[in-house]
């Protein structure tokens, strides 16, 4: 990463400082800021498939939900019998000590990153042979099926839902929980950003783009497209799982279809945010997620009952006026600011040819 320009350096350090200071500056908004970080992570990882690889997936919610259940299950299961915890009629109350809580969530997050990645590999091997809308529909089914299946598994609470361990009571500071989850999600955001930026500078991205632009040609050129598609999806699953794990702890209650495998909301939002900002760009999903979140938090409550109508209008506006997203629109308007140099000689040569 030695090639970071000075201006970029200022931008990045500014953003990091802002990110670190945010929970103190806007103490009351910690939860929304945590959501924002998670939303950006989801949009960025979706962009790897939908934007760079051209595989529009609705299945990333599967990894998000898996991460949520895994983190909570590990956090409980490490210290207490999981079945008794989730049994609704259970009269026993289990309480995590401070050390148990943090050990549990640490190990839980680790598991929630690795297992979804492995599962993405396995599922990817099976279905990444599908292309275009066949793949999209197939992944849509994945999320819905996962929700229904999770709703039938007794040990994770089935239809009752799963209450995640409460934040240790020994920590009396009521702000501590909010800060903990904010910094956790902010760290995840930075990790994801660095990783995605690294991919953007690598040959891997070019291969993904080649798959998007013409998969058959890419294959003809000797690229093992299947391998790269699977690896790409595993990377997304890794970060989606982590994001889910953090959200589970933050929300405190996991419901199979409404919180974990929430394809109707989160699953759609991540696609929408990436498209709003501009898919296939580094900053697009970040800006898209930020704008979307502010739109949602700011306007949602002003139009009680009509918010989904407004969301529908927003989708239409995005698709009609910004088909390439905000970044795509800016890029078209100011190509030189994106480092796209119009070569005068080349242009003249083109004109002469005509």
């Amino acid at each position, binding site marked *: 990463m030695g090639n970071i320009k000075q201006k970029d350096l200022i931008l990045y350090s500014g*953003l990091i400082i802002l990110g670190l200071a945010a929970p103190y500056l806007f103490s009351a908004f910690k939860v929304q800021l945590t959501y924002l970080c998670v939303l950006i992570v989801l949009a960025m990882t979706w962009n790897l498939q939908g934007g760079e690889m051209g595989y529009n997936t609705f299945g990333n919610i599967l990894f998000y939900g898996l991460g949520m259940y895994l983190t909570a299950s590990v956090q409980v299961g490490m210290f207490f019998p999981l079945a008794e915890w989730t049994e*609704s009629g259970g009269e026993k109350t289990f309480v995590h000590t401070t050390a148990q809580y943090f050990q549990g969530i640490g190990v839980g997050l680790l598991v929630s990153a690795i297992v979804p990645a492995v599962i993405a590999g396995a599922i990817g091997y099976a279905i990444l042979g599908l292309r275009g809308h066949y793949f999209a529909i197939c992944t849509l089914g994945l999320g819905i099926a996962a929700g229904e299946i999770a709703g039938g598994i007794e040990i994770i609470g089935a*239809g009752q839902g799963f209450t995640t361990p409460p934040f240790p009571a020994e920590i009396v500071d009521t702000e501590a929980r909010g800060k903990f989850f904010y910094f956790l999600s902010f760290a995840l955001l930075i990790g994801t950003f660095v990783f995605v930026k690294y991919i953007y500078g690598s040959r891997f991205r070019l291969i993904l783009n080649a798959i998007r632009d013409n998969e058959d040609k890419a294959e003809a050129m000797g690229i093992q497209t299947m391998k790269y598609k699977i690896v790409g999806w595993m990377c997304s699953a890794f970060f989606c799982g982590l994001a889910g794990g953090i959200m589970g702890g933050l929300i405190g*209650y996991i419901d199979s*279809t*409404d*919180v974990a495998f929430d394809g109707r909301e989160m699953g759609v939002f991540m696609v929408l945010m990436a498209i709003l900002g501009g898919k296939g760009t580094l900053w697009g999903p970040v800006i898209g997620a930020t704008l979307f979140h502010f739109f949602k938090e700011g306007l949602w409550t002003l139009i009680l009952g009509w*918010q989904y109508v407004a969301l529908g209008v927003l989708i239409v506006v995005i698709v009609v006026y910004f088909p390439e997203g905000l970044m795509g629109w800016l890029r078209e308007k100011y190509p030189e600011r994106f480092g796209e140099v119009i070569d005068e000689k080349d242009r003249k040569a083109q004109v002469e040819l005509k």
Partner: protein
Amino acid sequence: MNKIAKLFVTFISAITLALVSFTSSFAKVEGEYIVLGSAISLTGKYSSNGVHTQNGYNMAVDRINKMGGVEVQGKKYKFEIIYYDDESNPKRAAQLAERLIKQDGVHYMLGPYSSGLTKAIAPVTEKYKIPMVEANGASRSLFTKGYKYLFAVLSPANQYLEVAIDLAVEKNGGKGVKIAQAFEQDAFSQDVRLGILDAAKRTGSEIIIDDKLPKELNDMAATLAKVKAVKPDVLVVSGHTKGALTAIRQISEMKVDVPMLAMTHCDAAKLSKQHGKKSEFALCASQWHKNLSYKDKFFGSGKKYAKDFQKEFGYDPPYQSAESSAALLVFKDAFERANSFDRDAVRDALVDTEMQTFYGNIKFGPGGQNVAKPMILFQVRCKGDDCENRVVAPTKWASDKFYHPIPKWSERS
């Protein structure tokens, strides 16, 4: 990159400014008003019950404010409620609870609709030590988590239909019965199921069908086909409003004959209005019925409450509205006894609550559930095309005899 960076920085600073200016516009906690907060399902799968809940809250706020408000330290205060729409989604509900407490400065909460959403909000209110009186979260698991700031005016979910099984056994000459049951995959209905399992074990009854129904329930034909084949003595269905409507619609379409049909949410679904004679003989669990003899000075009797509610909102109040109204009476009572706005003082006053409202007696057990009020069962009965809910159990309030068994469809006109 230069210009883009600048653009981005401008964008960020604009947001920062907006946020900072927004932070200072906190809603006033006191003043003339006691501000309560509530996330309610105005959209999504619980929207009809969410509105019943909201109407119940609003009705009580108007009434209490009109009748002099809440007197604390010699000064009169009025209630005011800040509502948000939780979209019937637990994730959203938890976030909105946080928002109500942190950004709107709410110190006292009213519950949302449904057990699942209450389960999502309770950890938040508990964290900030915000007393929450809730009227629509009945799942037993809410009361075993050791929550100290959660108070429920209703009886826990596992008690809903236990009585129905007892009734069936009684009609069967004390011998165990064959039970077919189908429950929606959600916190509340699954808890009702646990209650039935307990009752079956206690009475030596046998469960021959035990189905799970999806959320957003609108088809249960598969279960009913099985019921037709195995002929159970009792069919138990629970799945909120949609569950009740779907069950009656398909039972009548498929002409399923069962001697006894026990359900929840019949009155919230306005079953006797929507399905008329098709819903006759359905046995329903309810937290409240207008014919019960409880009284208070704000709403008078249940009958008077029902009349006033009808006048205000144009339909008969389901128990969801009644219990929601009761939640505000509990809050008023607690504020006046605490004679303070200190959250812990109010919480301690809530613990000592022992009162009668038009909705029933209220006294909180150690887990926060209401232990002073039994569940009741009513049965839909029709005269001509006019159908009504009549209380049949417990015997103390029964206005009618329980009709058993349900006549076969071929014999019904």
